[in-house]
């Protein structure tokens, strides 16, 4: 009987064509006499089939330009050059005449990099403003903790709209144990900004920071390109941030709470602002 046992790894190797003739015969022999083992093999085969159905469609997708650009030098790849130019079009307007002259290409590339750097900094500034607003008005050791707040949750939106051209309503986070303690308008380099503070029974504070995009082109583009949701953690402060669907406002939910809790709060806020 012990001779007849075939390990599960053997069965796998059989399926994957990794056995020599003798081993293969042994497994086949085993399968012929063990319907249960045979069923396992069938299941594994069906599994492989399902996996391929699941993942194969990627094979038929056209290869994205950026990957082709990576693999093929730009000079040799006309399509790539066109799309690269299209990407830097906003910048190119001033340079469009000079474009015809090949010499300018070097300069174009450099200013595109500057642009990316500017966008990166604009994004950093958003994160910086969100976290410093939290530090100023929500941290225990701050002299400004919980000062200058509009404390009525229902009225906050109206109050804010009177001062800024932005519709905003404070969400309810009671289900996660957080109560609204107030909201405030904050200075912003462009557009309008503000935050809403919430506290739970353990005296933990979270903030919802929001900033609408103003006329600042760099920030707008930074938001556009980095529209995806993201998570950041620095020291004891965690933050989720994302763009509104229209892209006009960026939100951050931040606080010194664990990531699961913060995630749940962010999810609620996300649904609320949608």
């Amino acid at each position: 009987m012990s001779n007849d046992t075939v390990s599960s790894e053997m069965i796998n190797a059989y399926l994957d064509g990794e056995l020599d003739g003798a081993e293969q015969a042994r497994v086949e022999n085993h399968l012929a006499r063990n319907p249960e083992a045979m069923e396992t093999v069938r299941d594994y085969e069906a599994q492989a089939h399902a996996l391929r159905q699941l993942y194969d469609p990627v094979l038929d997708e056209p290869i994205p330009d950026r990957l082709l650009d990576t693999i093929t030098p730009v000079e040799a790849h006309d399509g790539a050059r066109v799309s690269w130019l299209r990407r830097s079009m906003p910048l190119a307007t001033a340079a469009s005449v000079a474009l015809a002259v090949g010499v300018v290409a070097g300069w174009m590339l450099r200013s595109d990099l500057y642009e990316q750097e500017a966008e990166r900094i604009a994004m950093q500034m958003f994160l910086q403003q969100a976290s410093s607003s939290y530090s100023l008005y929500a941290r225990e050791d701050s002299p400004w903790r919980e000062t200058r707040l509009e404390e009525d949750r229902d009225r906050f939106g109206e109050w804010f709209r009177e001062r800024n051209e932005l519709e905003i309503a404070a969400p309810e986070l009671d289900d996660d144990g957080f109560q609204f303690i107030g909201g405030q308008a904050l200075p912003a380099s462009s557009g309008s900004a503000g935050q809403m503070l919430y506290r739970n029974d353990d005296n933990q504070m979270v903030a919802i920071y929001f900033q609408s995009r103003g006329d600042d082109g760099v920030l707008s583009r930074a938001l556009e390109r980095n529209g995806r949701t993201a998570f950041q953690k620095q020291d004891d402060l965690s933050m989720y941030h994302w763009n509104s669907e229209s892209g006009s406002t960026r939100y951050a939910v931040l606080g010194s709470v664990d990531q699961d809790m913060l995630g749940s709060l962010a999810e609620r806020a996300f649904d609320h602002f949608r």
Partner: protein
Amino acid sequence: MHSLRTRITAEIPHLRRYARALAGCPEEADDLVQGCLERALKNARKWDPDKGLRSWLFRILHNNHVSRRRSVDRELHFRRHFREPDAVAAGQEVSTELDGVRAAMAELPEEHRNALLLVAVEGFTYEEASEVLSVPVGTLRSRLSRAREALRTKTNGASAKRVERGAE
């Protein structure tokens, strides 16, 4: 060099398929592939033509993935809370059965999942797959066997119920 570029280009769809399974989100998957391509071109001289081009590329891709895993983990955690609207749209219409397989795959430990993907989907030999993952063949065997069994248990739960109901 030129023919190497051409050969690498031919592997891109396969790299994307594996990366898509690794990363979940198409955008991030292509980031992985792009990183892999850049690395491969830079280190083209290190490629040993006796070893397959594909497993060499997959190894680069995999290492790229591992080194980015920490941020990817965060991203995954995040996505559990926020379904990206386009992710749903891009998911196309998939049968519930495939959804079940997809969900079961997501539950597997990553090491097991990757072993299964390389062998069952990409068709690598054990030798090649173990090289991609930088583990001994024995480890690969055991991961593979556990992955298949776990996947079977997870997906059979659903189909067994269907059978029961059918028998009533």
